[in-house]
Structures are given as C-alpha cells and as structure tokens.
C-alpha cells in the first residue's frame, strides 16, 4: 500500500467519524491544507528527488487521494446540512395564527377608484381624458348645448348662478366639456371622456346631492351610429360590473342629443327580474345619452354633414352605488373614515 493510499484511507475514516462542520474543517486543513496538508504538501515534499517515472506515479496517486478526500468531505458536509435542516420545523417554529399588524397604507376614496376604473376602461378603447372649468359660462353650459334661456328643458337642472345676470354658473353637468373638447381638438376623430364635479340646486338627501361627480363621454367621427353608442355603453357597464349585466336604452329627450336615450343597468340583485332594491323594475336608471345634435356639433366647430357623434353622461357616485350596494349618497361626502376605509 502506497503512502498516498494510506493517508487517503486514514482521512476517509476520520471524515466518517466527524461529528460536525468544525471537525470536517480540521480534517480538511490536516490533509489538504495549502501550507502543511498531509496529502497536499507533506506527501510531495520529497518529490524533487525522485526520478521522473516515480515522480509521475506519486503525483498521480496524490491527486487521486486528494480528490477522494474532497468528495468525501463534500458528501459528509451535505449529510450534516441535511441533518441540521431536518428539524427546523420544530426548532424554528412561529405562531402563524398571530394577527399581522396592518400594512400602513391609505385608502383611495371610492369615487376616485371608480373614476379611475372608468378612465382605464375607456383608455383601453382609445378615449383620452378632457377637463373643463366648473365655474362655467351660460353659453358653454346651456346655450351651446341647445338649451336656450327660458326653455322648459332647463327646469330639470336647477342651477347655481354666480351673478345676477345669470351669465356665470356652476356647471350643471360635464356636457360643456363636449364643446370645449371639440373646439380644442378641432378635427375628428374625437374620442374623449370628461370626469368632474357638477352642481345642482337639489336638497341633500339619501338619493340627491347638490354636488356630485359626473362622467361625460363624447365620440365624433365619420359614420358613428346609435349602434356604436349602444356598444360603447355595454362595453362600459360590462367592464365595470361583469359580462352578465345588461344595458337597456330607452328613448328620452335632451336638447343636445338627437335621438336621445336614457340608459339603465340591469339590477345586480335580481338580474332583471324585479326586486325591492330596483323598485320591481329589474333595471336601475344610470344615465343619459344620444347622438350629438347637429347644432351642438356646429357650436363645437364640427361639420355635421361630414361627421356624426354620440355622447353620454352619468353620475360616478351612482356607479359606485350600483357596484358596492351603497344605500345612501351622503356617505360619499361625509368622509367618515370608517366608510372610506371599506374600499
């Protein structure tokens, strides 16, 4: 038996006996240490004096012994590691039922969230967001939308005025942004939405607010139809509430659209059958819409002989109310943080 083999066997026996990482470490230094390892150094100390053939044999034997010891060390270390990890389930156990501290993050207001959802939903089909002033001129809010002074159709929107001449108003709807957007953009295609605050002289109660958020939509392009309007509203409602929720349009009247419609969303509780929360109707009134009146297009600087358009508008709070079964509109502006933090 060569010296190399003997050293190897002694080392392997020691490795087999080693109880922990530290002992293995010591064995590694003893046999393979760079400065004075029994195999790596001492074994080869007299190699220079040997003749070439013996020199080669010894070198080869030493190398083999070194590799065998290294392999044994790695295997033994892996065994030790496995043994160490085997029982951490017990030794390092924590109580996973312990309640987690709340992540310190605020809640976006539910109206903001629904508004944002709508913005994203419409952005996906090519609509951009437009804004307009809330303190608005009578012309943009009424006249340009075919709602002349003294006309009965103004009755439905009780107006806050800022001056005795009734020339400056708090906008009663987001529809004036239609005119401003047409004027700003100029040449169709125009696909915009305009979310924002509006104001009406309504008394505050569970179903009315003197101020609320509306979302207006306007599309002006060549060849737009009532069918396109219908598809757009269905896309919106179904994106917001789910594929099974239907939209119902009913002919109606607005000065700034022709034809005009109101649109209803299928009641989510009874799915159209009629229940208490929809007053037995199966549908919940949602908003107004229609094909933009040719005079309104003209007021926005658009040629009605070449282009047609559709527009719609609804209350964002109302959408939030439909989405989350909120019973009272006042909750949106009360800012009881216990309510705000539910969303």
């Amino acid at each position, binding site marked *: 038996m060569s010296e190399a083999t003997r050293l190897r066997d002694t080392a392997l026996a020691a490795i087999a006996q080693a109880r922990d990482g530290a002992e293995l470490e010591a064995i590694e230094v003893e046999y393979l240490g760079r400065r004075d390892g029994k195999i790596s150094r001492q074994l080869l100390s007299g190699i220079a004096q040997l003749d070439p053939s013996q020199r080669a044999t010894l070198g080869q034997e030493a190398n083999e012994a070194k590799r065998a010891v290294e392999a044994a060390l790695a295997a033994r270390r892996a065994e030790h590691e496995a043994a160490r990890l085997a029982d951490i389930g017990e030794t390092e156990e924590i109580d996973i039922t312990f309640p987690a501290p709340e992540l310190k993050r605020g809640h976006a207001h539910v109206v903001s969230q629904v508004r944002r959802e709508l913005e994203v939903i419409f952005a996906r089909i090519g609509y951009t967001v437009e804004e307009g002033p809330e303190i608005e001129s009578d012309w943009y809010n009424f006249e340009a939308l075919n709602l002349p002074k003294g*006309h009965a159709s103004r009755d439905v929107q009780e107006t806050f005025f800022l001056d005795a001449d009734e020339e400056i108003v708090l906008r009663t709807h987001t529809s004036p942004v239609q005119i401003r957007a047409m004027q700003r953009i100029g040449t169709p295609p125009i696909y915009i939405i305009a979310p924002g605050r509006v104001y009406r002289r309504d008394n505050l109660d569970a179903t009315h607010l003197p101020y609320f958020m509306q979302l207006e939509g306007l599309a002006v392009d060549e060849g737009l139809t009532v069918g396109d309007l219908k598809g757009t509203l269905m896309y919106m409602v179904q994106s917001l509430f789910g594929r099974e929720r239907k939209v119902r349009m009913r002919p109606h009247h607005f000065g700034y659209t022709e034809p005009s419609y109101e649109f209803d969303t299928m009641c989510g509780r009874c799915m159209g059958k009629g229940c208490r929360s929809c007053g037995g109707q199966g549908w919940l009134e949602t908003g107004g819409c229609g094909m933009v009146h040719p005079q309104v297009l003209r007021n926005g600087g658009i040629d009605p002989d070449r282009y047609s358009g559709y527009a719609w508008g609804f209350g964002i709070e109302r959408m939030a109310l439909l989405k989350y079964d909120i019973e009272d509109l006042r909750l949106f502006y009360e800012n009881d943080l216990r309510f705000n933090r539910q969303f």
Partner: protein
Amino acid sequence: MRISYEWLGEYVDTKGLSPVEAADFLTMSGTKIESVQVIDLSAIIVGRVLEQKDHPSSNKPLWIHQVEVGGGKVIQIIAGAPNAVAGTLVPVALPGTRVPSGTLVRDAKIAGQAGQGMLCSADELLLGEEREPRIMLLDRGEPGESLAKYIPPDAILEAEITPNRPDCLGHIGVARELGAAAGREFKANFMPPYIEGVQPPASELIDIAIEVPDLCSRFVAVPVTGLKVGPSPDWVQRRLRAAGVRPISNVVDATAYVMLEHAKPTHVFDAAKLAGKQLHVREARDGESLLCLDGQTRKVGPGMLVVADAKGPVAIGGIIGGEESGVSESTTDVVIESAGWNGVNIRATSRALGLRTEASLRHEKGLAPEMAMAAARRAAALVRDWAGGKVHADWVDVYPRPQEPVRIQLEPQKIDGLLGVRVPPDESQRILRDLDFQVRDDDGTWDVLPPVFRVDVELPEDVVEEVGRIYGITRIPATLPGSRHTSWNIAPAEDNHWMLREVLLGAGFDEVVTPALVSHRSLQRLGLAEGARTLFNPMSDEMDSMRTSLLPSLLSVARYNQNRISERVDVFELARVYRGSRADGLADEQIHLTALARVDSAADAGRRGFLRLKSAMDRLAQDLVAGTVRYLREAPHLYHPGRTASIVVGGKAIGVVGELHPSTLAVFDLDGRAVALDVDVEALIAARGDRKATELPRFPAIQRDIAVVVDMSVTAGELHRAIKESAGNSLESVRAFDEYRGDQAGEGRKSIAFTLTFRSPERTLTDAEVERVMSDVRKRLEKKHGARFRS
C-alpha cells in the same frame, strides 16, 4: 302624468293588451311609465245600509252599520265615517278581500263590537282622493252584485313626459304613441268635428284684441248661452278622479276633460260677469292684481300677460282664471277661451308668481297654436252635451301669428346611417304615418310633414329619432366604432394625478372627497375669503361660496372623525380651489393636493410630523423627476410661525409644508396639533423632468459620520451647504440623520449628525485620502459656524 288605462282604451285598441304590457311598449318607445296600479273591483260587492248607529263605547268617532250584502244576508260593519246612513248603497269588502289600495280586510273586533268587513272609501278603491273620511256612495246596484258590473276595471299608469312632448300630457297623445309602438289601431282624431252653431254669431257677443301678438299667437273665443250648471256625468267624474282631478261642475269638468284628452288647457268665463264685450290680451300694468280661482289674490305686473275686460284683469293668461269671472252655479252664458301662449313667457310668469298649475305646466312647454282650435271645438261640444246650451256660430279666432307648416327633406339612407341598422323604407314610412306624419317619396328624397301638434320636430335627425324609437332600440345591434384613422391623439400612459395619490396612499394617508361648496362666513373667519367666488342664489349660507383652500375641508374631516375613530387621522384630498375672476367671468381653478396629519403630544412630535410630510413632498418630486426640492423658512397665515416652510421646486414656490397654528385648530375645535402639506399640483407637474438611468458605481464607497455641535440658530441646511462646499469632488452625498438637543451638547447648543459618503469613479479611495477631506470639512465648519465635534 296619470293615465287611466280605461280612458286610453277609448282612443286606441287595447283589447287583450294588459296594462303592464302597454306600459312596457310605452316605456321602450320614450314614454316612461314609472308605475302601474291595477284597479280590479270584481271582489268588491254592493251593500245596502239598513241601519246606522253610533258606536256605544269607542273613544274615536265610529259608526256601526247593518248592511245587506245579497241573498238576504245582513252583516255588521264598523266604519269611521258618518255618511253611510240607512238606505245608501255602499261598496263592501268582505273579510279576506284585498282592496285596490292594498289593505287586506279581516274580521275585527273594535272596542267590543264585532265587524265583518269594510265599507270602502274612494281612496281605498283608487277611484279618487277624499280630504276627510267618507264612504263612497253608489247611485245604483243591488246588494251582492260585484262593483265591477258598474265600474269598469282600470289601471293608473304614472308616466314621465319629456318636456319636448307636451302633446303627450293628454290621453290622446299617449294613445297615439301606444298605437304606433304596439301596432294597435289608433281611433282618435286630432281635430274634432266642426260645430255649426246658432245665431247671433259669436262676434256680436264677444270681441278679442291681442296687444302682444308675439306672446299670444292665437285666441279662439266661443260663446255658449242658455246652459245649466250641475254635476257632470258619473263616468266623467270617474275618469277625472282616475287622472287625479277633482270634479267640480259640468262646465268646469269639460275644460279639465279636454285638457286631459287633448293636452290643451282652455278656460271658461261667465259672460255675465265680464265688463263689456271686449277682452284684451295685454301685459299687466303696475299695481294690478287678481283674485284667482284658488282663492288667492296675486299681484301682476309688466312682463306678465293678462286677459282683461273693461275693468281690469279677469285671468292670468294661460296660467289661472279669476274667481269673479269664473263659472258658478248660477252661470247660464259662458265664453270658452282657447289660446296659444308663448312658453318662455308663461314659464317666467309662473316662476315669478311661484304658481304652477295644470295649465301653466302645459303652456310653458310651448303648445302648438293649432291645438287651440281642436281644444275649443271639443270643449264647446262637451259643454253643450253636458250642460245644455247653444253654441254660437262664426267663432272669434284671432290668429296674428299663424303656425308655420314644417317640411323636412329626408334622405332615407340617413335613417340607417344614424341608427346603425337597416330599417326597410316601408317600415319607416308606416311608423311615421302611425305617428300622424305625412311622408311623400319625392324621387328618393322623402318629403316629411310632421303633424301640427309636434312642434319639436324640425330636422332630419328628429325624424330619424321618431323612426328609431318606434322601430325599437333593442333591434339595433350593438357595435363599437372602428375605422382606418390616419391621425390620432396621443395618450401617454402616465397619470400624474394618480401618481401623486399613490405617494400619499403609500405613506398611509386616506383620501377624502369633500364638497367644494363652503360657507363664506367660515372662509372669512379663516382669512381665506379673498378672491372667493360666491353664489348669487345659494341654497343656504352653509354652502354659499366656492372654496379657496382645501385645508378647512380637511380640518372638518378631522373634526368629524375625532370622536368616531380612535386611530390617527391622516387624510389628503386632490381637488380644485377657485379664486378670482378672469375677463370672461370664469375663475382661476387650481388643482391642489393637500394633506393633513394629526400628531401626538410627545415633545418632538411636531418635528417628526413635519418631517413625515416633508418626506412625502420629496417623494412626490422624486416620482415626477421634478428635481431637488428646497424648503425656505416662511410663516404663512394659519401655520405655525416657527415650523413652516415654503416649498420651492424648479425655482418656483409651489406650496407650503408645516405645522398648523394652534389657533387654526381651535377654530375647528380640534385637540392637539396637526401638520399640513399643500401643493399646487399643476405647478409641480410643470416641473416634471425626464428620467434617465445612471451607471452603477464600480468602486466601493467610504462612509464617515460626523456629529457637529453648533449654536441653536445654525440650521442643518447651512451645515449641509458648508460640507458640500468644503468636501471636494469625492463627496458623493451628505445627509443629516439625527438632531440632539440636551446636556451633552451644552447650553444653547445642539448636535447634528451627518453621514458623508465618498467615492471615486476611477479607483478605490484610501482611508488617508478621506481623512484629509474630513479634516478640511471640520475646519470649514469650525471657522464658518463655530462648530465643535463629538465623537
């Protein structure tokens, strides 16, 4: 508008069509039916009262009736009204019956007396409204017979009529709609038949002068003489009640009936009470007034129209008649008025008087003057038929502004093009004819004549709407627009406002949305009223001004929640504030982001709160790549004078961060302290820059901490600047991380600790190199700020 389904059936074939089905046809064609109340009287029977006695022991006024209910059977019924005396015929609901109003009748014992059914009032049968408890009395029938034998079943449809369709504020208009929508025969005529009339001609009895032809386009006056005022027929009274009108007398009921049929109000004067035979339609004069039919005296004046006789006003035109010239029991000769009024003027007068009548709410929508003759003919016929009397010939019809006929040229392709569905031309034409339009195909272009009562139809688009709503919106396929556009609006995906929200949300702030309408008084109290825009017609002084700052709103939210939740209130809002008046009268509307945080009562809580908001501000700027934010000591109104800074981004002051002045909190009755951040969002976004990646460092950094002891008056900002100036190129960053005030710093002194990071882009720095720089830094701080150093 209340529609009697039974009445509707006179003008349109409703056989086999239930009220609910009809309601659906109407709703889906534009006449929204809000509710349907079915009146089925088949379970109610006729009873004859044999005996009526006072209840012997009840505290409430009650009467005990013995009622014969057929087959010789007599039952005892207790009722709370005294009018069902012995011998009267009454409607009886036996136990187990549900009456139309919804009540289920049961056996009951009231104060010791057994009752076996109910005597019904008109209210309970939905046949009318009574002001006091009153049993409905019948004028015929035999005990035990079903009431349905005498009173046909009915249903009340509550309809929402849009302002463009005043012609549907009457049963004929709605019947026409139902006929077209449901494919049912429409049986009425817009224009009732001509009445020959007797001599002398009308012109010898009455003369009409219109002084304001722009406001009164037509006046038809029909004299009827020798009539007898009395009750109108039962069926008329029943229909009026069903439609929500209280019957008065045959002559007055005739005008109500015509209005509910033709949607056109008329008025009847007692000819004997008119001074002179000439009536003027003119503007009211200053100081005039009129005792009106509702018993109230109203002042009228310029701008309002009156019908006046030789002595003065006898009616407020198109709104209400005068009491003195009205029909009474002794009236024998009348003049029927049917006139065309200007809707805008009627609306203005009605608003000025605070008076809305059935007549004004129809006239204010601008009824077609052609309707005046139709209503006059119908009213004259009904007065003649119900009250007797002779209608005189050759009616006075002053018509200074004849209604212009409307003719619309329609390319039929426009129907398909606008609706997005192919409607067969003969179907379009049938729809239009069902709605009383005339259509002539003129070489491919349609010549469309709307009926005279449809003044809302003027454009081809209006005609398309008519076709579309009857054709049916449900038959139009839903599509999304798509075409090969060669230009487009660009739409960057960043949403700056949402990005700002995310920063505050991430910092633990809850978003609130608060009203922009606030009280001007409270703005004044806070010194925020300058430039505030106030409302001319506020609903209350709590909401009479537009806000100039979000801060009061947030403080109100904090106050509202103070006793409701125990945790900290950290809130923010992103919304507009409104100030000033531009040349066009609009306001300067600025979007602000304002945050408010309550802080606890620990000694350095104010400082920590301040730094928390400053962190938020730094992050806002960082996310927008808006460059370094500078904070300058400032003492703005409402803020703590020693703990507030103005925020400078890109050389522009864009907001304020600081602790609120204790007196600000006191106004809101808030405990403790609070800090606020208020930023002009547009200004911040204007500073937005482009984000560019920087190369990662290849050599390690060396860090050194240094604790600098200086006088209280020296700021971290000054030390920061001095360090940067003296540390040379190898200084990568410097950051203050702690401030200490206490014994170890010495009297009037404080210690501020900085971390300095050194790095070279070319090699690894040595400790010796860094030590040399640190020595320079210390020297500079010592010299410039009298600094000492703690280790």
